[in-house]
């Protein structure tokens, strides 16, 4: 398939999504769909955003290719990268048509997801327990504070040595960073719960176990999800570093490997792919959080009717 054709398809898809969103907006402002799209397209907001992108792409193309300025001329140009990405027959072996591209994505996603889930499964209960039991907090908090200042990436060499193989090492390092973020945010969440909720529950006859289930967990939920979103970002952050240092596959590896092999457009492809996946994964966490915290959403939108 022709790369231009694919490019056209992509642009069309983006436009379609944008137009669909305008339909919702049109209903909100009681305008017809066409008028709404026209208003958006000619609105200052949209034009400025477009200008922002245009200036950036133009700057990239002009400095790197057209004028080939010193320093800049070592980088690949935007068009070159785009064509490589969309090419059925890529010069350096990585494009949306090649199996390798997806293999790298899959490896990275698998590692990030495993680490993230592990961190959530361990970090959330630990944080809840720390916030729920004073004694447990007093035992565990100094330990957490002892280990936390060490940047997770400093663990890489030790992890490789101690754990069997590179794969667990990379996952461990990714896990570690996500774990601390999740635990501490969960703890913060429990601490943020107003004392009167605990008192009310005890008044109504709840025992300690019920408190954990009915007050601590739902009360800390907003903070937990803020923590999970940060933890997702942090997981990708250290995953890339781990892969660059110690892995055989994955996007971080791809970027570093392409650098060594002088396949510069692939670096940019890898970066953009990482950006898209990173963004998408936090969007997933965010939407799960919204589903679980319907009460919060409704509170925000329903506040209009209070009198």
């Amino acid at each position, binding site marked *: 398939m022709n790369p231009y054709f694919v490019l056209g398809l992509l642009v069309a898809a983006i436009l379609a999504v944008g137009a669909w969103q305008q339909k919702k907006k049109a209903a*909100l*402002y009681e305008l017809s769909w066409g008028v709404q799209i026209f208003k958006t397209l000619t609105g200052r907001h949209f034009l400025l955003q477009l200008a922002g992108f245009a200036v950036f792409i133009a700057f990239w193309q002009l400095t790197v290719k057209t004028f080939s300025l010193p320093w800049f001329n070592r980088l690949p140009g935007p068009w070159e990268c785009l064509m490589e990405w969309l090419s059925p027959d890529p010069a350096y072996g990585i494009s949306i048509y090649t199996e390798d591209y997806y293999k790298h994505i899959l490896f990275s996603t698998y590692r990030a997801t495993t680490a993230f889930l592990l961190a959530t499964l361990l970090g959330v209960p630990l944080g809840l327990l720390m916030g729920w039991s004073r004694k447990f907090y007093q035992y565990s908090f100094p330990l957490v504070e002892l280990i936390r200042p060490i940047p997770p990436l400093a663990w890489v060499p030790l992890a490789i040595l101690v754990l069997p193989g590179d794969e667990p090492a990379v996952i461990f390092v990714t896990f570690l960073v996500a774990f601390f973020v999740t635990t501490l945010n969960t703890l913060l969440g429990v601490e943020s719960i107003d004392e009167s909720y605990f008192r009310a529950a005890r008044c109504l006859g709840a025992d300690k176990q019920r408190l954990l289930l009915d007050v601590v967990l739902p009360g800390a939920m907003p903070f937990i999800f803020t923590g999970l979103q940060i933890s997702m970002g942090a997981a990708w952050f250290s995953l890339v570093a781990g892969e660059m240092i110690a892995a055989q596959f994955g996007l971080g590896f791809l970027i570093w490997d392409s650098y060594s092999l002088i396949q510069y457009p692939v670096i940019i492809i890898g970066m953009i792919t990482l950006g898209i996946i990173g963004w998408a994964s936090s969007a997933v966490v965010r939407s799960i959080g919204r589903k679980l915290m319907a009460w919060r959403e409704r509170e925000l939108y329903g506040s*209009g009717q209070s*009198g």
Partner: protein
Amino acid sequence: MGNNGSKNGHGQDKGELVIENVTRVFRLPGAPSCTALQECSLTVERGKLTVLVGPSGCGKSTLANIAAGYDHPDSGRVLIDGRPVTGSGRDRIMVFQETALWPWMTVLKNATFGPTMLGEMSRSDAEDKAMVLLEKVGLKDFKDKYPAQLSGGMQRRAELCRALVMNPKVMILDEPFRGLDVMTRELMQEYLLKLFQQTGLTMLFITSEIEEALFLADRIMVMTNLPGTVKTTVETDLPRPRDYQVLATERYRQIKSQVMESLYEEGAKIFQRLDGIQDLLGNCQASSQP
């Protein structure tokens, strides 16, 4: 602008605030438009303390924002001494429901911000003037504290001082004591009356509490529920200075019944809409016959 305005009782720089046929409609996406104010007119007389009472959400704050110039009416106008004004200006200082002291400045810096920023006064003159006012409200020893170090009541007093240092023509107070407990609130009211009597400023005070209105006002205006207009005006001709002895007077009782009847009628309308209370109105009407 005379700097001695805060001293003399009836200076010529006290303004008269007139609100003429003001209408304000809010249009929000996805919701029916809401008329907050409809042809609302009122006059705040020179050197008088006028209190505007109404149920919450009746458009009182919208009116205050328009009078202060933070919001613009769809029609109608605001006049100070017969001169129409638009936008906010230093002739109308507003004291807000939520504290608006700048948290990074000490009490004294807050109070002297206005005059020194405008370059009207030297720093030391402004500080002298501010200190006189701070002393009056018992904050002399707190001049170097940050707002977060003060109690709620102290913050309100500091804010009053900050506004008075600006020597405005009209002061607009939008439920300034809301959220304070009743007892602190009563003490704040006493401070406000003291300042009012000393400066003779024109004040528009907005509240939802009848007691507060009765204690402070020269004149009480009751607002209708949405769309807001002034429904009843009651002259509060109780003797000043007022203290709790005034509670026992017959005139106080009359005024209270009158305002209560008018206010609860509006309140009942809201509650019919929200919750379906029927009886509040019956009770209110009974209250007008002593």
